[in-house]
């Protein structure tokens, strides 16, 4: 029990407390220790990337091998992954800044990614058309605010009514910002609570469960 539960608990609490204290006090020793711990985070995230690649390859390779559903798509995923890895790790390659890798990024990955995201414009337009309907008093408010922000954000709104961008700015700076402040404060309080619970051992997500 001591090794499996209390040792991880004491390590997590000590590391968390050290990073927390170094945030509020300027001390070279604390800064160095905190820097070592946060440096481990970078290593762990990098290791997580390897795990992600391993998981991706194993799942899609299994689907291709078993001729599972949409297995040609999995084949394309694996081909793209290994093609980019080969270009980057090939002897003599300049790594991520190699001209072949840059070509693949610039003329294959970037256009495909941007194309998929561009479809969002049509979804948003369709959603605005269906949602901004005058059905109740609340929907009337939503309709007016939506139209004001849509037009006030762009020059045509200024051409229609020069004060429309000012009205849009007020909506964003006063009512919307007030709501954001409330959300941010709530999230901050929740974060403090969650942090204290982890530091005090009330929550132990790293042990696979909330409590002993």
């Amino acid at each position, binding site marked *: 029990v001591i090794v499996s539960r209390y040792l991880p608990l004491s390590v997590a609490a000590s590391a968390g407390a050290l990073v927390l204290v170094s945030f509020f006090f300027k001390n070279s020793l604390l800064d160095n220790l905190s820097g070592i711990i946060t440096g481990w985070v970078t290593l762990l995230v990098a290791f997580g990337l390897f795990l992600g690649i391993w998981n991706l390859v194993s799942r899609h390779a299994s689907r291709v091998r078993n001729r599972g559903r949409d297995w040609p798509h999995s084949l394309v995923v694996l081909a793209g992954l290994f093609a980019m890895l080969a270009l980057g790790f090939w002897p003599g390659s300049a790594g991520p800044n190699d001209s072949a890798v840059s070509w693949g990024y610039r003329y294959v990955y970037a*256009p495909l990614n941007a194309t998929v995201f561009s479809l969002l414009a049509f979804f948003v337009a369709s959603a605005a058309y269906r949602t901004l309907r005058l059905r109740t008093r609340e929907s009337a408010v939503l309709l007016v605010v939506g139209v004001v922000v849509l037009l006030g*954000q762009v020059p*045509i*709104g*200024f051409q229609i009514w020069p004060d429309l961008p000012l009205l849009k700015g007020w909506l964003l700076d006063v009512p919307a910002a007030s709501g954001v402040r409330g959300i941010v404060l709530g999230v901050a309080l929740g974060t403090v609570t969650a942090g204290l619970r982890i530091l005090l051992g009330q929550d132990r997500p790293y042990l696979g469960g909330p409590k002993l």
Partner: protein
Amino acid sequence: MTVYCGGCNTANRDGSIFCNRCGQNLAGPAQRSCPQCAASNLRDARSCLRCGAPLPLPEAGEPGLTAMTALEEEEEGPLEADVFSLADVAPHPVDGFRAEDGSQEIPGAVSAPVPVALADADQLLQRLEAGLGPGPITPAMDAAARSIPAFDLPTDPSLVHPVSPADTFAAVVASRDSLPSRPVQTPPPARAARFVPRLLYVALLAAVMAPFLVPGDWSGSTIPLTPATASFFQAVAALRPGAPVLVAFDYDPSTQGEMEPQARAVLAHLMQRGARIAAVSLLPAGAAQAQLAFAATATAQGYRYGNDFINLGYLAGDEAALATLGQDITAAFPRDFGERLPTSGRTVLQGIRGVRDFALVVVLASDERTALAWLTQVQARFGVPMTAGVSAASAAQMAPYLQSGQLAGLLTGVPGAAEYELLMNKPGPAVRMLDAQSLAHAVVVVFVLLANVGALVWGFRRKGSAARLAG
């Protein structure tokens, strides 16, 4: 339990607020649910559109109950006199009844012993008003009609003839000339729901392409300058030559269209001021985006890699990793991204140890989460001046930090980039992109307004029709 639309009789899932087919409000005050089968009916309806069961009268004072309707009820008496129970003749559910949505659910009117009014004129007229025809005559209903003794039927010779009452009913309904001359209205949403979105997509595509196909001053040089953009510009303009600036490229190709105009405008201004620029990214694709932005601006300004600017690359670890920038930046980035050479001793990084040594931090983040990470882990902790460029969708979330002074300036989306280009007296791609965005917004607003006007007009017509039906 399925909820049936009172307008088109489409079966909708339990809890539906609007009809999936015609968009009619299923829960609004203009509807009344049948106590037997739960179908939605018009408020003034006296019998259920679907099962024919009599509906309880609206109480006095309730909206939708006209004086004429109440008077008629008093004169005509209760409707129960014309009703008999289907349970007497059809004790078992009728198989094979398929709802319009393809489900196999058996309606309550057929599966349960409920009273059915065969000759309810209101039911017939409501269905005709909705353009639905007389409605299905199930075998059980037909059998029930056949079992009625002849003396209970109207003294019409045709009904004592061996012809089925169901056939007679259908024949009467099919004879339009014998019906009152009331206007038959077809619900427009069924057609509009298919056609209008397609028209919206075509109009949106045309609006986006128009400024690029027909170059010109579409905005009429009327791009209003916002204080947040002006503050950003002043923060960069106040830099002394050679001042070190850290630029975070936290966006990927999905938001490149919105973020790269910002990056190009800001980099061009920084290079005009002679600032030393170091680029980092919290996203794996951000380093490549920085390369693209530098390639588009550095040559024109005579900037040399390693001496005047450097791309440090991707920093894994997200928010937690930002704390490492406060210690030793060359330790966090042992080699740069552009040349894969050691960062220690590079000319552009001379005199810089941690993030505190930068005169300004510029965060170009497509999402507010990353921008907030920089604010909380770098600006709040090390007190370094910071400006940010974010997508338009993140503008509201960043407003409190601009108001508090934690951000010295803020660019939002393409409008922010266009304003920056105009402040530099160099209108570029962002201004043209803003023309396209402006027209696209106008198209969406026009469609939204037309849809609301159409819905209001249709609502008035429908209310008038319901009032005439009740009267």
